[in-house]
């Protein structure tokens, strides 16, 4: 009951959803459309789980474990500020947008920008001719990198066209094979789920 009922639900819904893609049916298609919308509502409702856990973890840190109390207090204050102001003013209010633009946007873009730095150090380590495969990686990486940058053309005039060729030909082939492999892998996982042999996502023990 604890495992079989959820498995049966997943299987039935999965089969319905797949059938919906192939078949035009006045009964099935609207049903699946509504079901999809209902699931989006349900996942939105699930946000409370995260909220409860976040509050509990940080309150515990302040009251019970007494570690990183200042940081946890900051989390709770920032959280409360965004929730309360959002609830009172509404998410479209200009003052709320001001808060969003002042605190979240700079952190979003700074954290993403960190990847520029990290790519540099990763490239320094990974682009090393340890083996033949690594040499191919290095060559393709460096040529495409230079092909993008303005300085590449100055160093060697053929760089942009060579880089474009790598993107259009070997890269296309590689990505296409990866994508096809993903499709096959996903199908295999789906088959395992439908036949009830993949239970990993529903507590593998038992």
């Amino acid at each position, binding site marked *: 009951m604890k495992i079989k009922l959820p498995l049966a639900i997943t299987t039935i819904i999965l089969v319905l959803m797949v059938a919906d893609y192939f078949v035009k049916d006045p009964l099935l298609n609207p049903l699946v459309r509504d079901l999809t919308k209902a699931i989006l509502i349900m996942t939105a409702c699930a946000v409370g789980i995260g909220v409860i856990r976040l509050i509990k973890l940080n309150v515990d840190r302040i009251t019970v474990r007494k570690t990183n109390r200042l940081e946890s207090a900051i989390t709770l204050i920032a959280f409360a500020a965004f929730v309360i102001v959002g609830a009172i003013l509404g998410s479209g209010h200009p003052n709320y947008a001001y808060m969003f633009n002042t605190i979240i946007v700079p952190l979003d873009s700074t954290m993403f920008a960190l990847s520029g730095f990290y790519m540099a150090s990763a490239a320094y380590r*990974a682009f090393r001719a340890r083996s033949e495969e690594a040499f191919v990686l290095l060559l393709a990486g460096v040529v495409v990198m230079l092909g993008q940058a303005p300085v590449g053309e100055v160093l060697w005039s053929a760089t942009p066209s060579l880089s474009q060729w790598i993107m259009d030909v070997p890269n296309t082939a590689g990505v296409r094979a990866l994508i096809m492999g993903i499709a096959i*892998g996903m199908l295999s996982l789906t088959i395992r789920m439908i036949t009830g042999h993949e239970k990993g996502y529903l507590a593998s023990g038992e």
Partner: protein
Amino acid sequence: MQQTPCGLIYQLFTVCVGDDLLEIAKGTLSCLVLLAACSILMIIMLYAARKGRVPKIRKIPAVDAIDEAIGRATEMGRPVHYSTGTGDFYGYDAMVTIAGISVLGYVAKKIAQYNTPLIVTFMSPEVEPVVADVVKQAYLAAGRPDAFKPDMIRFISQRQFAYATGVIGILNREKVAANVMIGHFMGEAMIIAEAGYMAGAVQIGGTANTIQLPFFVAACDYTLISEEVYAAGAYLSKDPLQLGAVAGQDWARLVGVVLIGIGTILATLGVTWVADILKL
């Protein structure tokens, strides 16, 4: 369209099935046939395994490295961090997230035996119950239910880069010895992987997002490449039926290879039937 072979096949199909019985959405017929063929091949392999014909699966080095990484963390007495990524249970990322959770079940069982600390993070709040349940059951199966602590499972934030920031903090502060990332990753893949390297962790990465895969290849010690992510759970479970489905993947692969082979030979001779049929 009527005079081409494709048109004839389509007409034949509608005659057999009947117009009013089922109306196949336009442009999905070839997909339906291929999907059915591949599924049947996989199911046949799955049930062949049940009858005792267990297929041999080649070694997947990146998956074998997971044991090694757990061993290292145990020796050092430092925690293992497992991330199922920024995916949720809807759309493209759902399958990879499920595959990642499936591997997590194995990792948690192994860790429970060794008594090594474990930290699991994920982005979407709806993933939490599943992840917590899987880890709890793994500890139960290993006979150490008391060793499971709810704060092993850490929800950080459902905002993508806030999650990445939190993970960087955990990797640095908790002195993580092994960092396993299997699931859906986006722009944060590079950040987490390189921060993990700087924190001195052994890293195993795996994702089906082809745009982010190169970053894992560059920064991680081992990488599960696209398809291997989906097979990893079955490979680790050593369950013959699941292995059968993985062997079925090879048959589906051969379907693709043969179609491309025949199609290319015909196309070189100037016949484009195969490509046309696939348009149906």
